[in-house]
Every structure is written in C-alpha cells, then in structure tokens.
C-alpha cells in the first residue's frame, strides 16, 4: 500500500458535508449528506479495502 490520498480527500469532503448537516440541519444539508456524503464514504471504504487486498496479495506472492 503506497498511498491513500484520493480516499482521504474524498473522506474529508464527506466529513465536511456530514458536519454541516449535523450542525445546521436543513433539507439541502440533509440531501448533501444522504446523496453525496454517504456514497462518498462507501466509495472511500471500497477504495481502502481494495488497496488493503492488493497489499495483502502482494505480500503473499
């Protein structure tokens, strides 16, 4: 595993949207959390797990 840059940057965007919704709840903040932040977190998790998997396979060989 070399870098987790885009995953971390995506997570920062998602955290910012989540924080906005938690502090200033409203329909637009809720929509941003529901339809952008949550999928972003899922994409981040997938990207992270794929890199971990690649890393583990590399070590096995």
């Amino acid at each position, binding site marked *: *595993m*070399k*870098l*987790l*840059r*885009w*995953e*971390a*940057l*995506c*997570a*920062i*965007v*998602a*955290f*910012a949207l*989540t*924080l906005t*919704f*938690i*502090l200033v*709840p*409203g*329909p*637009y903040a*809720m*929509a941003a*959390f*529901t*339809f*952008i*932040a*949550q*999928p*972003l*977190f*899922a*994409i*981040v*998790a997938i*990207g*992270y797990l794929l890199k971990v998997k690649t890393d583990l396979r590399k070590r096995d060989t």
Partner: protein
Amino acid sequence: MSADNGPEDRDEDVTSSIGRREVLFTLGGVVAALVAGALAWGVLEVFVSKGHLVGGGLHVTYLQVVMVLGTLVCVLGVILCIRTARTRFDAVGAARKDVNIGIARVPALLFARLVALMALIALPAAAIFLANYHTFEGVHEVRGCASCHVMLPMVNDMQDPASDTLAAKHFKNKWIAESQCFHCHTDYGLGGDLESKMTGFRHLARYTTGTYQEPITSRVKFNNKNCLQCHDGTPKWMAQQAHTDSRKEIVANEMMCTDCHGLPHPSPEQRTPGSSDYSRLMQRMK
C-alpha cells in the same frame, strides 16, 4: 494518544504534497458519489409503492449528544484524513521507526495503518450512524418539517386557531403537547418501516432538486394506525357505535378515519399557487 515522538520522529515523518492526480481522483469520487446518489433516487422512484406499515416510533431526543459527538467524530476524521493523505506507507515501512503512543511503542507503519483504518472506516461508520440518527430522530420538531416550504401550508394551517382541519383541532386543543407532526406521522421516525424511510429520501431528493409540483400529493396511503395508537380503546372512541361496528375495516385501512372526520390538512385546491388561501398558508413560520 500521541503519534509524535519528539523532534527525531518529526524529522523522519515521511509526508508528501497533494498533486493534481489526487485532486482529480477526489473530484472523480465526488462525481461517482453523485451518480450513486442519483441511482439510489432512481431506484426509490421505481420501487415506490402504496400502503405502508407503522413502527413503534422510538422517541429519544439525545440531539445535543448527537451534535457534540458528531462534531468530534467529523473533526477528528478530517484531521486523521489529512494525516493519512500525507503519509507514504512504503516510505514509512522502509524507515522502520517506532511511534510512542503513551502506553507502548508501536512500529510507525502499523500506527500509520491504524490511523488510516480509523480515518477511512471507523470514523466514517460512526459519522454515518450519528448523522442517520440525527436524520430520523432529530427532525421531530414542527419547525423541522416547516423547513421545506412545501410543508408550510400544513404547519401554518395546523397553528391557525380559526382552522377546523384535523391537525388544527389537535393543535389548538393541545391533544398533542409537542412534536405534533411526528405524532401523527410516526412512520418517518427511526422506529418506522423501511418503506417510509425510502419514501422520505425520495421526497428529499424531489424537494432539493425542485422536481415537484404544487400542490404536493401523497403517493403513500396514510395508515390509520397513526390515529389508533392514541384513540383506539379509549372510552370516548369506543362509545361511538360506528367505531366498534367498523373497527375491523378501520384497522385494515379499508375505511379511513378521514372519511368521516374530514381533511387533516388544507385541501390541494387551497395549496395550489394562485388560490386565495395560498399566500396566507405559505407565510414563513415565526
């Protein structure tokens, strides 16, 4: 817990700057998330159906706790993400250094990986849980419903002493002390069923994208259980012969409470832009 082990560790902390490639990937991630959100909305539109069940309505107001915890989780998440974004794991591993975490010294690579796990999996999971809790349990207030302007006619009418709709009668007679919207629409809460959640998300997508028309109409049938949870079995309710005779039909939603008791909210005609009542009903809540 501190990752810093004095000046010597700081000298060896292997970091690098963010390049154009990473920014492009991040933008790509945001676009992919938007597409995923749009797809989720599309699925909701396709699978929206009629008839829904009502759950127990878990009513716990720990809003302040959620706000404080959520803020901590998100701020910590951002800090750890920045650290993770600046870490070159292969270089950290090659350096073979230890990090003092207060109670022990751990290899720097292991520590960097733990930070990444926290930043990208553990804290996002916590943030999602807290924000979803906030979504389902933190929006019980009438003001929360009124934050979408299409809901203003319902809220304004409910608070109008001169109105005779069911919602207004419940409000002015103080039959429901607080969170009046939620008491009759408990299926939108955390204890409600999945279909209500999906419908709520669909409404949210419709509202925020402006893809709706006034007057709004409900595609899901109101469940009499929302009324029966308070009224069923009370002496006043049981004293009505019509209630006891038709109880089976009422419970099965074959006969609606509103069939006999009138409209719960202003009629679609009153809520249509241009109608004589529209401007009065659309006044912002004070």
